[in-house]
């Protein structure tokens, strides 16, 4: 059960006034909040989430002086958490062995999206503009044949023929090069 802003803030203020019990209540209540904050952003790299939760708790503890008592506590908390995450990435990126970079990119779904984009662009660039456009409209952007025809200012059968010939040209090209 997530604690409310008012509750967290009163514990934070208690801790700032030197109340150790309030401070430990606060830190305990932050654990689930931070867990879901980081898990949502790291997509299940579980040990990183655990590390980040602990690092953030330490920052909350040691950098308490940077909290302005007149402002919302959660805004401050998430600003600290966000910095911890950025710093975590920065540190890892710098010290990641080059073989593991692939893994990181794959985890983030970054490589797939990027290389798919590059492949499609490269293949389509070999076709005539009309064929490339017809394929892009119908197979990538998901338009119907009729919409593609209106958009390109050509007949529907022309679109179908362009897609057909274009795809066949791409298939031949891939067979030929591989």
């Amino acid at each position, binding site marked *: 059960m997530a604690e409310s802003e008012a509750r967290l803030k009163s514990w934070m203020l208690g801790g700032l006034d030197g109340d150790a019990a309030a401070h430990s209540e606060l830190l305990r209540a932050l654990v689930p909040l931070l867990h879901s904050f980081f898990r949502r952003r790291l997509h299940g790299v579980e040990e990183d989430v655990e590390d980040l939760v602990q690092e953030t708790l330490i920052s909350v503890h040691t950098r308490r*002086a940077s909290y302005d008592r007149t402002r919302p506590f959660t805004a401050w908390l998430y600003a600290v958490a966000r910095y911890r995450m950025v710093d975590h990435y920065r540190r890892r990126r710098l010290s990641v062995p080059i073989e593991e970079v692939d893994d990181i990119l794959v985890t983030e779904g970054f490589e797939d999206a990027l290389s798919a984009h590059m492949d499609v662009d490269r293949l389509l660039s070999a076709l005539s503009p009309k064929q490339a456009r017809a394929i892009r409209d119908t197979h990538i952007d998901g338009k119907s044949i009729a919409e593609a025809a209106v958009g390109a200012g050509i007949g529907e059968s022309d679109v179908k023929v362009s897609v057909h010939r274009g795809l066949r040209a791409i298939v031949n090209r891939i067979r030929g090069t591989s």
Partner: protein
Amino acid sequence: MKDTQELIETLSRDVRRVSAHALAMRVGFGIAAGSIVTIVLVIAVLGVRPDLQVAMHGFSFWMKWIYTGSLGLCTAYAVTQLGRPTPASLRSLWFLTIPVLILLVIGIVELARTSPGNWLPMWLGRSWMICPWLVLTLAAPIFVGLLWSFRKLAPTRLRAAGATAGLAAGAWAATIYCLHCPEASAIFVLTWYTLGIALAAGSGALLGPRLMRW
């Protein structure tokens, strides 16, 4: 999970009271501690200008002091803003233009009263070559003081925090340098003092991301 519990217990064993003004006090203390070192350096190495007593009754001494001091106060405030992790408004830095513009007007008036043949010596004074570098050097202890302040703060824009801390250190260093520097013209101060302060700000911008990480 057990580790986290242990961590919380360890942290909860050390809960000191934190004053509501802790951040401002810490920034002020960092600047003050660094300034003491800088003052000692000016007195011991450069020497206080011999005519300080007389100069303190004159216009140009106060013109310089009010210029650098107002820059110092304004930037110190901006530093406190950047010590918090939540997004800070740096609009207060626009106030820096006021002392700069006032000094510019004084400088133009001074130039108008001086024959053009004397403009160059007035602008360069006797120490234009070393003045900016001295201000930069004297800013170093104050910058170190501010680094100490930031150790309990949570800056998230490290380059901006470094640049602003450098700016503040430069402005306070320039204020202290007034104890030594005998130059009197507004145009001199506007150019060479400001250049020294800007050098300090630039150095801070370079060092911030490296030294202020937490």
